């Protein structure tokens, strides 16, 4: 007989259905309630479980049945609970385990460190939409390399911002600016305040729909539907999405994101994005990089241009200075500098992050140049 100490309830319905207990050596036992007709006690089927395996279960990586089908040390225990201070485990031979004592296939833990109500109440306090993202590695190890975390956050912000601009235009870009305001160590839940204020119906509909748009990409299984949805986001959104997913894929990270949809209805939205879903979208984007291309046209005049230095040039359009490069320096043949000589230029637009300020930076590559007239 082993006396156990109650640690935490994992699943509750009428009574604790699954809980964790420890023995005097701090070994953890996963205890699962099974039907038993005794007026005075509850009975649980228990297995010893390592921290690592428990984290896999909490992180939805393995299901409950797989733990009971293959206990780490091969041992089972019958646990009698009279109250929280009276928990006794007795070894139970494996051949006495009956099917009615086991869960169905596919019970995944949904251990949620992100509390919806907290997100909603903080949204109400700040008057702005709150969102969060949590990263999880394949072992749900609850730790993460700082460089990976900062990289992932930086690229997630870029993806959301670009998607928001794509859908609503540059005038609404600032709504997608995210300010990190809390970090929970447990599974790296980073909370953000976004910059769109709620309307009279308690909704920040634009930014919420942008996040929804990103989210739905990962729930698509059919390649035709994926193609359709991804093509809607052509341009910088896709390049920043690929860049974000590259960090996820390289570090074998899955993520879960969530945001407040309406403070009036007190609703949140969001989902857990698995490694499989990440790989599916990342692979698609890698084979369709042409969808990331953005071409822009300007009308104005050349202020400078050189065949050296990667064909650097400066173009003035509406008194705005645009700089770029070109791979075809012979494009400058016959071009006259100065305000009196007007040109229409076509450029490929690329988005990068300034390494010093970490702000998004747009660069242009000249691909076509047409002389308009001379003033």
């Amino acid at each position, binding site marked *: 007989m082993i006396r156990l100490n109650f640690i*935490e*309830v*994992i*699943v*509750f*319905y*009428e*009574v*604790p*259905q*699954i809980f964790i207990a420890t023995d005097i050596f701090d070994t953890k036992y996963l205890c*699962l*309630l*099974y*039907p038993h007709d005794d*007026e*005075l*006690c*509850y009975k649980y*089927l228990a297995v010893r479980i390592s921290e690592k395996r428990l984290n896999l279960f*909490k992180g*939805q990586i393995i*299901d*409950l049945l797989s733990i009971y089908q293959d206990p780490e040390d091969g041992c089972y225990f019958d646990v009698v609970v*009279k*109250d*929280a201070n009276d928990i006794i485990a007795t070894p139970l031979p494996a051949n006495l385990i009956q099917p*009615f*004592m*086991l*869960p*169905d*296939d*596919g*019970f*995944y*833990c*949904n*251990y*949620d*460190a992100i*509390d*919806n*109500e907290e997100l*909603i109440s903080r949204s109400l306090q700040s008057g702005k939409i709150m969102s969060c993202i949590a990263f999880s590695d394949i072992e749900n190890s609850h730790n993460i390399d700082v460089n990976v975390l900062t990289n992932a956050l930086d690229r997630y912000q870029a993806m959301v911002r670009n998607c928001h601009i794509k859908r609503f235009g540059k005038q609404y870009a600032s709504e997608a600016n995210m300010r990190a305001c809390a970090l929970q160590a447990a599974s790296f839940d980073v909370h953000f305040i976004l910059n769109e204020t709620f309307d009279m119906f308690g909704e920040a509909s634009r930014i919420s729909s942008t996040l929804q748009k990103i989210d739905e990409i990962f729930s698509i299984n059919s390649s035709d539907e994926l193609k359709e949805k991804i093509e809607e986001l052509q341009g910088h959104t896709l390049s920043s999405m690929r860049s974000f997913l590259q960090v996820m894929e390289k570090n074998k990270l*899955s993520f879960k994101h969530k945001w407040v949809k309406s403070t009036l*209805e*007190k*609703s949140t939205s969001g989902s*857990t*994005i*698995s490694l*499989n*879903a990440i790989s599916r979208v990342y692979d698609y984007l890698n084979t369709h990089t042409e969808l990331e291309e953005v071409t822009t046209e300007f009308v104005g005049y050349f202020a400078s241009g050189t065949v050296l230095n990667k064909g650097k040039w400066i173009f003035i359009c509406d008194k705005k200075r645009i700089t770029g490069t070109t791979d075809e320096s012979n494009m400058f043949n016959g071009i006259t500098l100065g305000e009196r000589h007007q040109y229409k230029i076509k450029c490929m637009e690329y988005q990068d992050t300034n390494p010093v300020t970490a702000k998004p930076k747009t660069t242009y590559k000249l691909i076509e140049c047409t002389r308009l007239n001379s003033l």
Partner: protein
Amino acid sequence: MYTPTKLTEYLDKYGVSWAKTLPENTPPEDIVVAYNKEPLFRLIQKEEIMTENDLKTHSELYPNRNFGNNLWKASGLSSLCTLEDARSMAKLPYLKHLHGIAEITMSPEYGVMLKTPSNNCANHYTWWHTTLFDLNNAEIQYREITLQPKAI
């Protein structure tokens, strides 16, 4: 999502009676109420009918068990605010004898709830129902316990 309310305000407004004999200080003062016809899901014994047996609390079913400090919770009914959570719960051995899910369109007169989440399920509520919750008149839809798609 249900609306946070004070129990005293709720009782003043609706003047209801509890369907079961409840222990002292139950329900607690800080509760939530479904003012906007929100759904509430409860696992039930039969597939397409909710009966009085489905409204028996654990403390009523097992009066001799020691519920300790949790008697207040055992005198209420476990319920969930999403269908997915209800379907997931039905996979656990102790709950496998429950073969259906009732989706009740809630009305404030039906009683009060308190969020009593476990770490696994933040959508779990304990519901203390009133005598005004009538199985014959309540709007109840029956949902199948079908297998959920595998979690990602």
